[in-house]
């Protein structure tokens, strides 16, 4: 304040002053000046505004009761209890979302590992994607419970919480880069080397697990040097774009690849490889739906509405989009997968029949019930037949003849 230039505009003004909490600059007479509330009180919201009135006569406003100069800090803690309640609701929603995600992803992984005849390269990529989602949710849960809800830890600012934050950013990157790997794999499979043989997955592993270390490390270095707040919790910094920028780039590239695939499937393959292109269309549909859903949070994130009610709705939607992603991915890639559903149904029928056979011996009933139930009960709206091409090309020897019968049955259904 003492170093600033003296007031050089004409007219009456109120002198720059310190009111005990904030500095106020020279203000023209008859105006109301404002600045953000200070952050040194627990219940002060530093996004709210504190105001100070300069009267017409060039004197700061004095409160009528005490006749002392007075600044208006009432808005700083006016809405705090409501906001605190909202914050807790969102916090518990996030915890529930991640817990559900972990549960559904672990179930999906169990399904993929148990049914060995489902596995092929695409399923391997799915497994890696699911593992990265599980780890991301686990880390986020630890971070939310141990750090975010725990003001002592934040005040103490141990190195551990910054390391946790680093791993959190790394796993976030892994999520989106594995989605990118899925897109690249489909692109290579369909567009570049049409339905050709297996690819080397080493480069996908490198992109999915290895590369996200780069933005995470750069973010850690930049944060330590330029914005070293407690536990790196603040989201008010543009340094977060060091991690979110590459993620958005990956999402955009993924979207571009998927649209290219759709273009190729629609235009070029429709005539030549009709059956395969239908199947791949269904495969791509799932990924095409997921990619915008996963990415849309980054697009609408900067635009939080000013209106109170709209802001609350925005917060709820953003939290659902962010924290229930694992559940969405598991549902779309596994539970809605036709092959998985068929395999589960078969297994269930097998168990039922075995159990029934202990009661009565009727072998002939079994084979007829398989094909009958499979063809009628498999839902028409199926997402993935990604491994079918490999079955068709004879790459994959299915141990089960009934499985082949099932596939051909579905294809021409």
């Amino acid at each position, binding site marked *: *304040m*003492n*170093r600033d230039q003296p007031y050089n505009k004409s007219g009456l003004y109120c002198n720059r*002053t*310190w*009111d*005990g909490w904030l500095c106020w600059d020279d203000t023209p007479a008859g105006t109301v000046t404002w600045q953000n509330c200070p952050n*040194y009180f627990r219940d002060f919201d530093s996004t709210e505004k504190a105001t100070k009135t300069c009267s017409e006569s060039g004197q700061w406003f004095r409160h009528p009761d*005490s006749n*002392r100069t007075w600044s208006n800090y009432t808005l700083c803690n006016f809405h705090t209890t409501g906001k605190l309640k909202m914050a807790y609701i969102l916090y518990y929603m996030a915890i529930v979302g991640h817990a559900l995600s972990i549960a559904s992803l672990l179930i999906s992984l169990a399904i993929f590992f148990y049914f060995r005849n489902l596995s092929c390269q695409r399923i391997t990529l799915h497994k890696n994607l699911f593992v990265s989602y599980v780890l991301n949710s686990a880390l986020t849960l630890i971070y939310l419970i141990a750090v975010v809800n725990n003001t002592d830890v934040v005040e103490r600012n141990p190195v551990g919480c910054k390391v946790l934050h680093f791993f959190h950013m790394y796993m976030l990157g892994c999520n989106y880069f594995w989605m*990118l*790997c899925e897109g*690249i*794999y489909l*692109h*290579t499979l369909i567009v*570049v*080397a049409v339905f*050709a*043989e*297996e*690819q*080397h997955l080493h*480069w*996908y592993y*490198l*992109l999915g697990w290895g*590369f996200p270390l*780069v*933005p995470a490390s*750069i973010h850690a270095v*930049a944060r330590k040097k*330029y*914005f*070293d*707040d407690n536990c790196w919790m*603040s989201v008010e*910094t*543009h*340094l977060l*774009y*060091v*991690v979110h*920028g*590459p993620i958005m*780039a*990956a999402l955009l*590239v993924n979207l571009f690849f998927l649209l290219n695939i759709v273009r190729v499937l629609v235009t070029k393959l429709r005539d030549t490889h009709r059956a395969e292109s239908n199947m791949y269309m269904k495969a791509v549909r799932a990924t095409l739906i997921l990619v915008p859903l996963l990415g849309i949070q980054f697009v609408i994130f900067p635009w939080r509405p000013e209106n109170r009610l709209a802001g609350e709705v925005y917060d709820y939607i953003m939290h659902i989009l962010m924290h229930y992603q694992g559940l969405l991915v598991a549902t779309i890639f596994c539970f809605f997968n036709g092959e998985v559903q068929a395999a589960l149904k078969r297994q269930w029928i097998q168990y039922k029949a075995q159990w029934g056979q202990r009661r009565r011996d009727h072998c002939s009933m079994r084979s007829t019930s398989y094909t009958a139930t499979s063809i009628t009960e498999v839902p028409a709206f199926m997402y993935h037949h990604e491994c079918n091409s490999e079955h068709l090309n004879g790459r994959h020897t299915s141990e089960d003849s009934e499985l082949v019968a099932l596939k051909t049955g579905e294809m021409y259904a």
Partner: protein
Amino acid sequence: MGSFRPRSEHNCTLAKPTKNEGRGAYNAKFPCLANHLDHPPRWRRGFPPRAIVEACQSVSVMACGGTYEYAIEEFCLGKFRLDMEELDQHHWCSWEDTVEPYGELTNCTYLIALKMDCFWPNRQVDEFFIRIHKHYFHDCSLSGRQLRDPPNHILGPFIVVPILVTLLMTALVVWRSKRSEGIV
């Protein structure tokens, strides 16, 4: 903090406390304070801060202007000055080191205002602190406690370089997976 009852009719003199005085000596010098406080506050380091003073003047006029200013200059500033001199001048801008003496100084002005029945904060204390800041903190960095983003010419490369590396890496993976066609 005990309840400060209004000044009594005791004719106490203002006495400047010296260092290394025990509670007994203090109470002898400031009997009014001892009488007025229900629970004498616990002083740090065993002896009371020299700043706590008994403004037991029989003059009952609200001397919140000049006398208050005199009081805080006399009794609060001395300790603060000593504390800051103990601290190396280079550390004056370090908030962690100065927060304790600064807090005691603030407390001291508050207690004196309370004893003298003055409002706190007030104009005199404002000016007092401005003088303190001018003397001790005049060349501390302006950014202070608020963390700020680095300037754009540093922030830009930090953001753009990872994006470019991402695109390069993606192109590399696409190229390598394209080349591996035909290899079982």
